[in-house]
């Protein structure tokens, strides 16, 4: 009897979860797709066309830049913690605790920090660079913790096999351990990517809301210090102004599609990488 109730609860939970997800996606698609007009994809934003194209490009730039900063740092830190540091050392415990705490901090706090440090103190202004650095700090613990878990899950015997053949630590880690941990690491990177793409609060403080593609052609590297708005921020602005709700839904559709494409791409890349190793 109790088993039956438990089983029913499990089904109800699963169905509710699926329904909520389907409901949200369906609602966005129904409200958004009819408003996907060609004018939304013009290269320049005006208050008439409220084009989402600059925001789309900015989103990709912002997410890539943040990940370029956060992934090597996070993966490197995780490798150090798991493979080099003594697991009992105080330093390791402090780093782990810090990472866990940072993971639980609301993003607006990161935004406030970014505003005070990157935007004001370093004088980078509201810019792609300030925003990306803030996002990088925000997702660093995510990348670090998932990579750590992935490394810990690799069988000890791979490492022993490497050492027993006279391979040094670096070669053993990079050739025997990391390839097996790769799917887990990619999972962490995807999680980080999702947070970058969906972030609004932290970026309002650090990247601003200027709807333009940074002018790398004209300014070169200094375009990194242009203000820009990502799709999520674009949506927020459109919706909060209240004048362009339809376009906000259309933007949400594009954002959804972007996330699906990025996830599929990353999974595909991980499979290819794993087979190649």
């Amino acid at each position, binding site marked *: 009897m109790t088993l039956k109730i438990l089983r029913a609860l499990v089904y109800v939970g699963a169905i509710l979860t699926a329904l909520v997800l389907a409901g949200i996606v369906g609602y966005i698609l129904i409200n958004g797709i009819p408003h996907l007009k060609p004018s939304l994809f013009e290269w320049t934003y005006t208050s008439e066309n409220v084009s989402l194209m600059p925001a789309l490009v900015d989103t990709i730039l912002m997410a890539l830049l943040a990940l370029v900063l956060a992934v090597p740092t996070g993966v490197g830190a995780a490798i150090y913690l798991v493979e080099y540091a*003594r*697991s*009992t050392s105080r330093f390791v415990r402090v780093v782990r605790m810090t990472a866990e705490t940072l993971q639980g901090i609301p993003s607006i706090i990161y935004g406030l920090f970014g505003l005070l440090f990157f935007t004001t103190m370093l004088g980078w202004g509201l810019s792609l660079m300030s925003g990306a650095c803030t996002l990088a700090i925000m997702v660093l613990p995510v990348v670090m913790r998932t990579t750590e878990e992935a490394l810990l899950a690799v*069988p000890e*015997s*791979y*490492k*022993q*096999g*490497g*050492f*027993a*053949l*006279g*391979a*040094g630590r670096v*070669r053993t880690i990079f*050739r*025997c351990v990391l*390839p*097996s941990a790769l799917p887990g690491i990619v999972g962490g990177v995807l999680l980080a990517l999702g947070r970058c793409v969906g972030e609004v609060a932290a970026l309002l403080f650090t990247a601003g809301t200027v709807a333009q593609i940074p002018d790398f052609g004209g300014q070169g590297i200094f375009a990194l210090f242009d203000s820009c708005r990502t799709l999520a921020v674009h949506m927020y602005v459109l919706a909060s102004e209240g004048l362009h709700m339809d376009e906000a839904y259309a933007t949400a559709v594009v954002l959804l599609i972007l996330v699906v494409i990025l996830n599929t791409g990353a999974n595909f890349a991980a499979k290819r990488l794993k087979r190649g*190793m």
Partner: protein
Amino acid sequence: MMQEIKQDARIAPSLPVISETKMGVEELDLFYGEFQALKDVTLDFPKNEVTALIGPSGCGKSTLLKALNRMNDLVDGCRVDGLVSLDGDDIYRDVPVNDLRRRVGMVFQQPNPFPMSIYDNIAFGPRTHGIKGKAELDVIVEQSLRDAAIWDEVKDRLKKSALGLSGGQQQRLCIARALAVQPEVLLLDESTSALDPISTAKIEDLVVEFASKYTVIMVTHNMLQALRVSTKTAFFLLGEMVEAGDTDELFTHPKDSRTADYVSGRFG
């Protein structure tokens, strides 16, 4: 001259010296933190012979094996006192650890092929030690796989993942991988205990053949295996080496009553 004196000093009282010593341990104490896993062990491993280390679980035989190629270094809190030598050189002081592990290869209890192709598994060791040429690697891979009697089974699937092989094949692959760096000594840590009887028999045949080229030191739980394969045997109990000698002699006329009890199956 120095070398000779050193050699003389290292002759263990318990093993009659017939052939040249390849590896030796002298007054070896080994600690895991507070726990002493090996107590004052002195033992010589003669060149080109198979020495078996036997004893009940937790007697220190695997610990001794791991002390011979410094795999114990990976264990936090492990401390070694005493001399372990390879060709008369102190391996904890005079031999770089990666050289040591190339010269003293190891095969583990569980087969542990890397998650890569069969070819890359075998080539991993040679590549580590600087051999990059494709032609040269091809020769090493084929020869190693032949020496481990698995070439015919895998020659058509060298580029396939090693994880697709059966347990027995994986273990022979691991032996081939160890052979590919041209070791002088092979350590086998209960390397057949996870395998079926047919795979075990194949590996035992290999080990007997290896004695002509390598010095083999094997830990085994299986006394019949020690009898079948080894020429020397050392019996361990609670971290002490109780008795060592010719395998036949140790099994038929053990000098110590504890050895007699163990080899006759009264405990262990």
